[in-house]
């Protein structure tokens, strides 16, 4: 184990390298480029001895090639962002439907038009119903750790689903942070050899991706069951991860939640800023806490309900937008809490689109609005960075 300063992209590349994938198809897009360039450079230097690093002509083909290699039993890694992730969209459903445990780092970037290079979560959350499991990292260490855990979860025979691990573009992808890189020996103890069950080999003909008639619905249902199974598997994997690497993760990340009456719900790197703001507000006697969504799919409903059982007012801070509706995660939280006997007020705040800075001041502002909500008894849907007219 060694600690070093690396970017989020390099942390993802390290996660992949330690997992010893056999196949890495690639296509460049900012802000993911550094991740695949790092892997390419290692490949050229002979540091990925059992890996074929491939270059395709588009992300659609990257995911298609990933499907092909995974279908014959390879451990596969790739990475993308933004328009690239959207171009993969069609094949993401196919990878999940074929139950192929591909792991992909997605580095969030807002979507065109207009063009932006900076982060928000619409690209990632657009894939919400593709059948992939979706993890979201807060910092570079978690990026690396999540990729290792993603393989364990994806390859578990109760799951067999692909996983994407998201980090915020630029905020993490190009920012150096101290990251502990585990040794290959430790990772080999954690990540067993992948033994696929239903793959194509020379001796046994197999049909993959055929047409199904009435049975279609049963395949989809199995997909759903597998994703639900993943919740328990993730918890087991987190425990085992802690035993080997000493770092502890839960289905949801709770910060100063013990007596919190006001709860801010976030995803990804803005959670760090939010934690800093919460510390300051706590010093002023405000009972505020943070719930960070680490695992988006499968949806850890019980963990979320448990964490929010004492909350009086909640702000779902969405770094994304479903135009004509509001934040994407807001209704997910509302639905999750709908059946509680006493329901907290839940407000929606849309912030930080296209890299718009997510400052401590903004977090404090939102918290004060929550306090107003408690007084008026009314919740709200609000854009933090613009006046809605």
């Amino acid at each position, binding site marked *: 184990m060694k600690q070093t300063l690396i970017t989020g992209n390099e942390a993802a590349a390290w996660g992949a390298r330690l997992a010893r994938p056999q196949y890495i198809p690639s296509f460049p897009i900012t802000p993911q480029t550094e991740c695949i360039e790092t892997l390419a450079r290692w490949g050229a230097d002979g540091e990925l001895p059992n890996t074929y690093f491939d270059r395709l002509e588009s992300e659609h083909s990257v995911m298609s090639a990933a499907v*092909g290699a995974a279908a014959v039993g390879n451990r596969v890694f790739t990475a993308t962002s933004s328009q690239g992730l959207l171009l993969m969209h069609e*094949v993401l459903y196919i990878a999940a439907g074929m139950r192929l445990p591909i792991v992909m780092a997605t580095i969030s970037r807002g979507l065109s038009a207009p063009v932006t290079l900076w982060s928000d979560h619409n690209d990632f959350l657009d894939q919400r119903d593709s059948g992939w499991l979706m993890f979201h990292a807060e910092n570079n260490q978690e990026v690396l750790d999540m990729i290792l855990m993603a393989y364990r979860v994806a390859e578990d025979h109760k799951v067999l689903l692909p996983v994407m691990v998201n980090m915020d573009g630029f905020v993490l992808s190009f920012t150096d942070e101290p990251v502990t890189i585990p040794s290959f020996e430790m990772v080999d103890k954690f990540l067993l050899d992948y033994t696929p069950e239903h793959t194509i080999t020379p001796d046994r003909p197999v049909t993959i991706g*055929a047409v199904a008639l009435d049975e279609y619905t049963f395949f989809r249902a199995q997909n759903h069951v597998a994703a639900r199974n993943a919740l328990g598997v993730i918890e087991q994997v987190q425990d085992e991860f802690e035993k080997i690497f000493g770092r502890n993760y839960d289905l949801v990340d709770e910060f100063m939640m013990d007596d919190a009456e006001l709860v801010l719900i976030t995803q990804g790197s803005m959670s760090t800023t939010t934690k800093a703001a919460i510390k300051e507000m706590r010093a002023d006697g405000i009972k505020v806490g943070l719930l960070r969504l680490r695992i988006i799919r499968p949806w850890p409903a019980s963990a979320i309900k448990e964490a929010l059982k004492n909350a009086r007012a909640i702000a779902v801070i969405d770094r994304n937008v479903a135009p004509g509706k509001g934040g994407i995660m807001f209704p997910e939280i509302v639905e999750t809490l709908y059946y509680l006997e006493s329901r907290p007020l839940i407000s929606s705040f849309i912030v930080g689109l296209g890299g718009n800075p997510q400052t401590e001041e903004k977090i404090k502002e939102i918290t004060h609005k929550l306090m107003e909500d408690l007084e008026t008894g009314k919740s709200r849907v609000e854009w933090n960075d613009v006046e809605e007219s």
Partner: protein
Amino acid sequence: MQEFKSIKDLPEIELFTGGSSACAGCGGTMGLKLALKALGPKTIIVNASGCMTLLPLYPTTPLKVSWIHNAIENASSTAAGVRHGLDMQGHDDMNVVVYAGDGATYDIGFASLSSAAVKNERIIYICYNNQSYGNTGFQWSSSTPYGSETKTTPRGRENQIGTTFVQKDMIKIMGAHRVYAASASLAYPVDFLNKIERAKNRKGFSYIELLGSCTAGWNYDSRLTIKMSKLAVHSGMWPLYEIEEGILNLNKDFKELKPIEEFLELQGRYKKLPAYGVQKLRSLINQHWTELKEYNGRRYV
């Protein structure tokens, strides 16, 4: 390398059994059945969405080889993943074969095809060309020949020709990728299977395009598939040739081409093509044939 001399040499092995849902007399289906004789059991077929996607219908399949269908535009990239995947597992003795329609090849899947070819991936790409989007009910693709009527290029008061575009010269384009590129016909199975044999023994990408006549869309009697295939070759509508290392080789030479009318008359899709349309089609074909004759044995691309 094995070379078949006559139809009696063709392998007896049958890897395509009964129970497919393709139309009777379908050229694409017959092509796969034939191709598998040369390919053998250690083959994985990578299919692009199209008529052939309906061959395996869960939970059955008429095939005794592996099969993967991903989507319509990505058979080549899927095959590249399969190829590298198998090689990484030490299974380099397997044939990775794309079997895709002309729409998936000429149009929507062209980028992934070109990319796999340029990288000279060890893949055998067989395009069964029914000159249309067959599975969706016979619409125009960029391999539909001038003068053919399709559902999206119907003849009408304003347009008596139907398809007014001239199809892409795909074999030339693939030849220009510096890979092996060849045309093939069901009426010449020895030639077709020898081309597959050559592809099998190459270390890189091979592109073989088979005229896959379509009883439903071309609108002809399913008994006539082989006759149709033969007439297409004899009339110059579907010349048999190959390009290797840029050099053209005409596989079936004729002193004189048969008139195209004999081929056209058998099919519904050319019915009511006005005389000036037939004239233009004839001249396009003569032009192509003259070019092939001129470059025979010489650098073509």
